[in-house]
């Protein structure tokens, strides 16, 4: 076993850390307060090739490994979870899915433009009445000549301002989850519209939207995978998505730790910096252990991904642990800040709000537990 990062992993971590500190940190609070999508930052990330990290070079990416992919998510998450979310959706849910399931034409058409950030992608699975229970989705796709006609609503869609959407819809309503098909949809197609969702607790700088599809015509060639493969496409996408969510949580927790450390060394109470108080040290010990435990769960999953073996269980373990962990760490960080942590004068308040979504999206903590346990026990807890 080797716990050291190799040279290129160290280099990409440093570059993204520098980028996050110089370009994102100074404006993160403002974008959060104004609920503004950080278009300028996304453009710069595209120019630096960040959206292509783990994408093979032949499709315009950097050809880095999955540990590097996690490091990028970690460094973005350390500073701004909204930006980390944009990265996760673009690369993990959309680009890697097209790479895994797409035809050569689809890959050539979309992957280089997604990897360069020229176009933005989103992932339309969840519906107003279909969350954890994916098979209950209502969106439909009916074959009519050379194209499918899509109808339905998709809810809580990150990167809602995207140029291209992966849309999941039922092509066979009687076949349960085997009746779902994935489509690559140009969001400028007539009948496709979106409604921005505001007033979120966290991730306020990410664009979240409801997608509305009214008789949207999608050519047959835009089916991703085979008709009926949609559920498999979605699950493999979520395997990648959860991996970067988990890494992002490690980063946000690290961000909490870093600001709390700085504060605890400066803040004086009872005649000495509070870092020297025993109960404050307990917070730091607990944070440090849990951040590392989460980080190693992520890297283990990344190691399996690098080997190309199935690791749904390990990814779920990382996602479950890290998403719960970051909430605990953010709680402790605010506890260390005291009253100042309750104000938006310090970033820890934003970290705390941003942490909350992680146990909910891309599979709730409860769903992760069912994936881990039912796989281990060989008995499904799903209906």
């Amino acid at each position, binding site marked *: 076993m080797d716990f050291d990062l190799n*040279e290129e992993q160290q280099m990409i971590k440093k570059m993204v850390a*520098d980028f996050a500190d110089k370009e994102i940190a100074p404006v993160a609070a403002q974008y959060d307060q104004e609920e503004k999508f950080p278009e300028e930052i996304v453009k710069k990330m595209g*120019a630096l090739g960040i959206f292509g990290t783990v994408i093979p070079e032949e499709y315009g990416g*950097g050809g880095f490994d999955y540990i590097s992919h996690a490091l990028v998510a970690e460094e973005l998450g350390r500073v701004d979870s909204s930006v980390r979310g944009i990265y996760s959706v673009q690369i993990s849910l959309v680009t890697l899915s097209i790479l895994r399931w797409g035809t050569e034409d689809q890959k050539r058409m979309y992957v280089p433009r997604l990897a360069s950030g020229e176009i933005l992608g989103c992932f339309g699975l969840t519906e107003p009445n279909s969350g954890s229970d994916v098979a209950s989705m209502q969106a439909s796709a009916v074959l009519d000549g050379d194209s499918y006609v899509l109808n339905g609503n998709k809810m809580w869609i990150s990167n809602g301002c995207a140029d291209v959407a992966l849309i999941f819809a039922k092509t066979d309503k009687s076949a349960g989850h085997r009746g779902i098909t994935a489509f690559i949809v140009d969001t400028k197609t007539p009948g496709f519209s979106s409604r921005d969702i505001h007033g979120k607790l966290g991730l306020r700088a990410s664009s979240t939207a409801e997608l509305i599809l009214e008789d949207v015509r999608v050519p047959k060639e835009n089916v991703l995978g085979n008709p009926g493969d949609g559920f498999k496409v979605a699950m493999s996408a979520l395997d990648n998505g959860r991996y970067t969510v988990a890494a992002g949580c490690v980063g946000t927790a690290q961000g909490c730790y870093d600001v709390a450390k700085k504060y605890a060394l400066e803040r004086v109470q009872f005649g000495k910096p509070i870092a020297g108080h025993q109960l404050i040290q307990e917070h730091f010990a607990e944070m440090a252990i849990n951040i590392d435990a989460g980080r190693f769960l992520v890297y283990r999953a990344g190691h399996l991904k690098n080997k190309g073996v199935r690791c749904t269980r390990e990814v779920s373990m990382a996602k479950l642990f890290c998403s719960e962990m970051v909430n605990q760490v953010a709680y402790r960080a605010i506890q260390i800040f005291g009253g100042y942590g309750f104000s938006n004068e310090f970033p820890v308040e934003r970290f705390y709000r941003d942490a909350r979504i992680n146990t909910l999206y891309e599979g709730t903590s409860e769903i992760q537990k069912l994936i881990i346990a039912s796989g281990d026990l060989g008995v499904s807890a799903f209906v």
Partner: protein
Amino acid sequence: MRIVVCIKQVPSTEAKVQMDPVKGTLIREGVESVVNPFDEYAIEEGVRLKERYGGEVIAVSMGPPQAKDALRQALAMGADKAALLSDRAFAGSDTLATAYTLSLAIKKLGEIDLVICGKQATDGDTAQVGPGLAQRLGFRQLTYVCKVREINLEGKKIVVERLLDEGVQVAETTLPALMTVVKDINQPRLPNVISIRRAARTEIPIWGPQDLNGDQAKFGFDGSPTQVVRIFTPPPRAGGQILEGEVPEVVSKLLDALSSQQVISI
């Protein structure tokens, strides 16, 4: 146009560096190393000149094996090649021996039009290696350059602006030349994902004394006449004086203070 950029790996400017009081050297263990910040401007300027005039940029560093990381950073920022001078024989070099060793490496690289160095390193702060290197190479030297106005490759001429205490001086000289740069010259770029990938794959040769055609007695500790008598942290700067009161009163007090200390004459 062939450009050499000389860089040094130094302890991170954010790290708390401690001195070994007996040896008079820096304690480098456990301290994060970075490219000397002034050298980042040198790398950036080299890459920009290459983009403007064509050619190649070669990054050269002397230091322990881990100084390769600094050269990788230069490659990621756009340098085409790199070479590391690293050998026990080079250990303990002062600025004289360093300039000598670097000059041999640059001669080994063939015909060079321009050498770029940062104005000084943030650890030793001597600002001697650049000028010393120019002397050894027999190149014209331009220190504290804040802007390259023009390079005429056919006419072998370079026109730069130098940032001096009194103002900006426009200087012209002939190539080959060596310039040291200040931070006003540019804003160093972040390397992109693809260039990092390329940098990580680029072989960096390590050169020792056997690779350089030089006088062994001028390398390393033996070639270094400088003796460090004592090394210490200067006392922290005493706090300034805060003048209080109404504006006209404060202004008058300030003028008195400045003129009594001969900062200004009234």
